[in-house]
């Protein structure tokens, strides 16, 4: 029989060392700091004076966490980002690069609206969850198209999801012009409104009617937990990760690779669809062209930033939400265009996704062994 001591030593887990700490804490903080500095340089280069730069970063902070209202806006912006990014992260872990969150989100949101105004008579506890479900299912189905094509024909999901995004815009335009979807008395593409009993209730409107934070944050937290459990604790997650890391080995292990691909895409789509439903039920109350507002694309960045880990995604989503909410305040207070935020976001990701680059720039700060890109 085997030697007990030897077996135990094989079970010894290495204590989280400096490398992990650098990976999870230092590098992201460093990335944010450097991105902000480069952002300031950009402002300088475009003729913004120092005082204004200072004012804009103060506004950025105030607008994101400086008040209850700011926190509410940060959370409101973060919820759909996190939801959609969780789906993408699930896909990345399964080896699927799903660019299609935008389209899935649109389809899901549209379905939630349609379901909502079609059954205005149902009571809140029934209608609201059903609307969410309709959104999730529609997003899942839409994403499953790309999943199915990948599984059955090998069509690469990057291209098919980009195409499905483009198709979804047209589909939405068309749906919004249909008599039974379009709002009565309007000639422009705008859907009927979601009935109040389908809305995700606002949580703090009793304090101040302008606090928009709504029950979607619970949905978000639930989803973070569920995706973490799914990926790391469940058998299905094992199958997802195995298929993602080595599809041939997964097949060898008796995992039905095509099923896993379709399932992972569908789950990713469901989460994106949920993000869409969250937007229409919690924030917008109706569907208009482009109501997705690029959330599906920002979510790619969020998933990458969160290194496809559910908890990482949560923090990355909160950061992006904060930047968005703060950016608005920045424009109002300092007159600096909110588009600066886009630059900062991109820079943060570069520094996180290319550790080699960070070490090339700051050779004294990071002396870790070779490690590829993120993911």
């Amino acid at each position: 029989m085997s030697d007990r001591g030897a077996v135990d030593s094989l079970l010894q887990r290495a204590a989280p060392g400096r490398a992990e700490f650098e990976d999870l804490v230092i590098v992201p903080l460093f990335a944010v700091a450097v991105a902000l500095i480069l952002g300031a340089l950009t402002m300088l280069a475009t003729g913004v004076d120092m005082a204004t730069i200072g004012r804009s970063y103060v506004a950025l902070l105030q607008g994101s966490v400086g008040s209850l209202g700011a926190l509410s806006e940060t959370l409101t912006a973060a919820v759909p980002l996190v939801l959609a990014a969780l789906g993408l992260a699930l896909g990345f872990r399964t080896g699927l690069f799903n660019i299609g969150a935008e389209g899935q989100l649109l389809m899901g949101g549209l379905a939630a609206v349609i379901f909502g105004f079609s059954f205005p008579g149902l009571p809140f506890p029934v209608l609201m969850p059903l609307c969410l479900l309709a959104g999730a299912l529609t997003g899942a189905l839409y994403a499953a198209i790309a999943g199915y094509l990948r599984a059955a024909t090998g069509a690469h999901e990057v291209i098919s999801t980009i195409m499905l995004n483009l198709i979804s815009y047209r589909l939405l335009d068309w749906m919004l012009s249909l008599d039974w979807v379009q709002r009565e008395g309007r000639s422009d593409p705008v859907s009927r409104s979601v009935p109040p009993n389908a809305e995700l209730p606002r949580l703090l409107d009793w304090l101040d009617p302008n606090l928009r934070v709504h029950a979607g944050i619970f949905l978000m937290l639930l989803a973070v937990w569920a995706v973490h459990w799914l990926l790391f604790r469940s058998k299905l997650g094992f199958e997802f990760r195995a298929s993602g890391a080595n599809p041939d080995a997964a097949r060898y292990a008796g995992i039905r690779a095509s099923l896993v691909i379709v399932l992972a895409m569908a789950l990713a789509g469901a989460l994106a669809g949920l993000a869409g439903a969250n937007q229409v039920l919690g924030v917008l109350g109706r569907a208009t062209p482009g109501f997705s507002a690029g959330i599906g694309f920002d979510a790619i960045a969020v998933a990458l930033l969160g290194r496809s880990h559910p908890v990482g995604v949560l923090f990355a989503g909160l950061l992006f939400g904060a930047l968005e909410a703060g950016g608005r305040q920045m424009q109002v207070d300092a007159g600096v265009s909110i588009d600066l935020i886009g630059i900062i976001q991109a820079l943060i990701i570069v520094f996180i996704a290319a550790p080699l680059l960070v070490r090339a720039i700051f050779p004294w700060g990071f002396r870790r062994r070779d490690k590829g890109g993120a993911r």
Partner: protein
Amino acid sequence: FTACQITDTGGIDDNSFNQTAWQGVLDAQGQLGIDARFLESQAETDYEANITSLLGGQCDVIFTIGFLLGDATQAAALANPDQMFSIVDYAYDPAIPNVLGQVYATDEAAFLAGYLAAGMTETGILGVFGGINIPPVTIFMDGFAWGVDHYNGVHGTSVTVLGWDPDTREGLFTNNFDSLDDGRAFAQNLYDEGADIVLPVAGPVGLGSAALAAELGPDELMIIGVDADLYLTDPERGQVYLTSIMKRMDATVFQVIEQAIAGTFEGGVIVGTLENGGVDIAPFHDFEGSVPAALAEELATVRAGIIDGSIAVGGM
């Protein structure tokens, strides 16, 4: 005193819609010494968030620019009854006490532009396209088409308008207010079908049409501007603008600010008409010499007719 403005997706420097309204705020800044701030909307979904971020006492009056902000403005106004709002291109029915709508009888000015264009065309074909199929856009197209009809009725001609049918309410729309490239492509399309004067009703999108006209030369294609006098706001391509259908948002916005400062602000509607100068067509500028005197005289008559009510602006 601070006045704040939230643009639609066209942006503050669109040379037409948002910029004209912002001009009113800037005028007030210059003449009344107020503070001014603006917030651009990146996407249609930003409206509500943008209004929210301007609440909390930083703005005395908030201007929301455009029909598409109607819902968001309404919601914010109801939630914040002490905040003064004013919205361009939207009138609430029933009125909201703290919102002043600014609407325009643009069809009256567009009628004149249509009449003028019908008199100026050599091919007998005119083109028009819109941004999004919403009333503040189609009212231009209606007025223009009716003006052409009126000209045809007076002169027995058969000038046609491509791109909008006031009866079926179908026509050409770019479905956005920001793609200049669409503006060029749509104008090219109409030009290929024989139009020699095009009216783009889509804010900055029309600048793309003007780029095409500038390339072809004004004897091939002329453009009719909207919102502002584009000869002035887009001087580099001034030579292509036959005229502009002006919607004097700068005047009404300024007026609203004056009222707000004076404490006479009240919810309701301000209507800009040909009569009160809220809408009009711009001078012909470079075309001053090319517009026949007879046509100019007829235009003056029509204009008087519209103001005194003897000419009804509407379908035949």
